[in-house]
């Protein structure tokens, strides 16, 4: 299931060219060039917001949902992310790449959201009867128990570690890019991802074993 090394380096080259590989059905075949969006943000901010939201709402929401494990909270933080982005259009420069910039706003907003007072992060554990109804979810994988287990482990990670791993695993961002998004050093990113993986490995391994025996 894991992309080969070849696929990973292909990811990297695509990234440098400014287009992004698709992960899901909400992916546009091509996203607007960053330079155009940045220029539009200066000239017609409302249009730029509309364009940015249409293009990236799925990516940002999916990221937040994976991190927060709560559709309502992910909704709230998605809205906050784009509202904050709009307010910060003035700080966008020609060198900015829009999606990483949005991820930075989204991760900060999500961590703030969790830390602003103590908060509960709800994890849907499943249905007692077969009446489950997840309105926003599109599950093409059908491996619900595993998915829930992954989500549970992600939820238990320290926020910085979870975000670093998500950005790397899902977006294929390099350590340098993640360092820019998270506002930390590359060494910190390296250790965050490693720690996330190790805790994952421990919990995931245990979960898998529990599942086999139970």
């Amino acid at each position: 299931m894991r992309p080969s090394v070849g696929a990973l380096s292909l990811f990297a080259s695509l990234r440098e060219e400014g287009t992004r590989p698709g992960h899901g059905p909400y992916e546009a075949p091509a996203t607007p060039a960053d330079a155009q969006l940045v220029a539009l943000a200066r000239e017609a901010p409302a249009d730029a917001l509309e364009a940015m939201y249409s293009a990236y709402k799925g990516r940002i929401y999916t990221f937040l949902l994976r991190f927060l494990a709560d559709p309502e909270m992910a909704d709230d933080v998605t809205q906050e992310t784009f509202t904050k982005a709009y307010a910060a259009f003035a700080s966008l420069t020609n060198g900015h790449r829009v999606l990483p910039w949005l991820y930075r706003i989204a991760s900060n907003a999500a961590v703030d959201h969790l830390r602003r007072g103590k908060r509960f992060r709800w994890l849907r554990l499943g249905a007692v009867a077969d009446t489950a109804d997840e309105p926003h979810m599109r599950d093409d994988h059908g491996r619900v128990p595993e998915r829930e287990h992954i989500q549970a482990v992600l939820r238990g990670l320290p926020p910085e570690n979870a975000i670093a791993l998500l950005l790397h695993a899902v977006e294929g961002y390099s350590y340098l890019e993640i360092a820019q998004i998270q506002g930390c050093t590359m060494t910190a990113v390296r250790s965050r991802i490693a720690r996330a993986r190790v805790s994952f490995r421990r919990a995931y391994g245990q979960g898998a074993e529990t599942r086999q025996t139970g």
Partner: protein
Amino acid sequence: MGRSTCLSAETLSAFLDAELAEPERRDAQQHLRECAACSAELATYRSVEALVAAPAPVECATAVALLSARHDRELTQDEALVAEAHAATCLSCRSDLAAFDGLDAAIAGLPVAIPSTKVDAAIAALVDRETVRSRRGRRGLVAGLALRGAVATALVGAILLAALQPQGGGGPQEALQPPAPIAGGGALAIVASVQQVLLNPRTNTLYVAHPDDGTVGAFNATTQEDIATIRVGGRPVALALNESANRILVLDDSSTQSLIEIDGATNTVLSSTVFAVSGTVTAIQVDPANGNIFAAVTSAQPQTPPALVVLDGSTKKTESTRTVPVAAQRMVLDQLGQRALLVSDNVTTLVDASTFKQLDQLPGGVAATFSANGSVAVLSVNGGGSRITIAGAQNASATFDGAPLALIALPQGGYAALVDDGTSGRIVELSADGTVVKTATVSLVGHDLTYNAKTKQYAVAGDRGLAYVGGPAAAAPNTPSAVPTPGASTPPSTATTPAAPAPVAAIPGPQVEKQAALPEAATLAWKGMYRLDLVDRGNPTVVGRGRAGHLWYVDSANRLTALDTLTGDAFTIAQLPRAATIRSVEVGTSFVYAIDVSTSVVYVVSLPSEKVTPVKLPFVKSSEAVTITPDDTLWFAVADQILRFDPRTSLWEAANVGLYSVGAMASDSAGRVWFTDEAHDKIALYDRRNHSVTEMPLPRKGAVTSMVVDASGTLWAGTDAGELFAIRSGQLAGTTLLARPVLELALDGRGNAWFLGSDARGGTFGQVQGPASAQIVPASIAGLWFDAGGHAWLADRSSAGFFIAVPGAR
């Protein structure tokens, strides 16, 4: 030939480094063959050399970071060597490395999702607002237009794709029409025939506004008997309920518009306040979270935009005024006071009830409601008929005959619409997806509709009076009994007598004054205390906690029983397994739960369907605390988790509460959940609207056994050391020592808190605010519950029966 002299250290070292000249090297080699000591020395040199040459060894903790980074090709060559060297010798790190392979793919494989339409609407509103603003001061148009074109082209694909994605669960419903344009500010302020009939479930009283004679009628919602005719004066056109304070608010639409407050317990006018707003108040609602009053205000002046005014529930002073996009003729708040629907001429707007931000808009606007599962439904005109538009978990739209009048959500899910058939009214019951399920004719054309879940009866208010309709039947529509409205020529006292016998619930027969509303079989035990013995029944062991209605209990034979406290009839709802250990019975509006901690099962009783479903939940047996919120969600605390179960979707969810060690839980009328932390002597409040937890220290000697939130919003917590704490507005407002452990806290019909304690003499109970006047019942009491008449029912654990204390009789 004797052995040659042993090699010097220099020679050995040079030999190792291949730095000896050929004759010397040959001699040295010859010697090494013969001399074990020199060979051993050379071997040592070799291993030292290897050690020096090898990369510095690292600990697993360091190595794993390097291995993880190497996996991502994010290492320098030197770092990669160190990582590889470690992996070569460390089995555990090698196995970690192998596991990393699948991990990224597993995370990347989590499902993708898109935000809800609520977020789309909020961003669209921001875009609209800002577009208008930027048009006012436009500049740099040429460049802007060119860029817009470029980005638009780039985005066409994205938008097309997004448009093709079904939103939400979807179904075979028609696509929604685009929202109609919002009416301009010049719309006339019209007070429509707004909410004119209202059910107060707390007292089971139906209130009807009679605008023409300045009164509000109060009826027993079960027996339809007239309780009171409350003279409020003016033109009462709309009613709203503050359930937690047990108050009914009346909008008086006479020339000086005012807000009149009725006490739900005494049915008398408490206060009248003239609205201090510029414009006309068209609708009122109460925020269930805090008792604040929302008033929708419109103005005939085009320069004054429509607004929502929030008044403090107790002082009636204006707290805030916000302009809203539409002039609302009706306003509906959701169960938690989180969202509001503003119904205007041809569009219904969903706003956030705290920020008034527009969340969504739906076409049409005659009536609107929130469903039991949080969806939004709008009833609107469709040619000569009606259309219902549903948005939320399911988007749907359906049409049916009859002009639209009113719409309500049914507690069991689905909706009921009131329509005008020309000469008579009709109630149309619809399922959650808008399918017409049943209809029933009403003898009068009404304005408004309400539903009583307890009696399964509708009440329709119209110009000719009030009509009650039993659950609509598909084949034979019921003939309703009409109650004439008190008019100018008819005295109110006779006019409010039901014209036909009540279709449900027998009216209790005439009884001795003292025993009014007590079962006939109840006998006087001593002054102020009655006793009801139950024949052929086990001893009550657990008494249900929660709302009025029937008294729910489990007896010694594990029979889940509902007791009609008016008649004294006990009904066995379910025979639970003998092995079950029922720790508590939680009573909600549409569901009752019996929690069995021995086999970890929750018995779920659905009141609408009268079905009992055992639900195996593994965590139940290790749960520390349980509570129920007004939406019937069941909450458990287990170790470091709080779990909640929604009976309507059968879904359960968990939240890690980490540091807390939860000992007791309680919920308030706004659905917020209080819990205690027994490890750190804290008490915390979880607000599900923003997922936040606020905590305060609560030093105590004992463990908290029970908590309850009274009608004033005060949280009462009792401990096994006899402490009784009052917490108001996040502050400890008082501590009382009872000298006996608190077993349980319960609310009476007026929302006052009572305690049940125990000591050697038996059970003790009294009001938390006057513990000195507590009464003693010489028996082991299993639980305390209050009926709507304010009688305290005390379950006798040692014989099959209840003690019934009559309020104020002592």
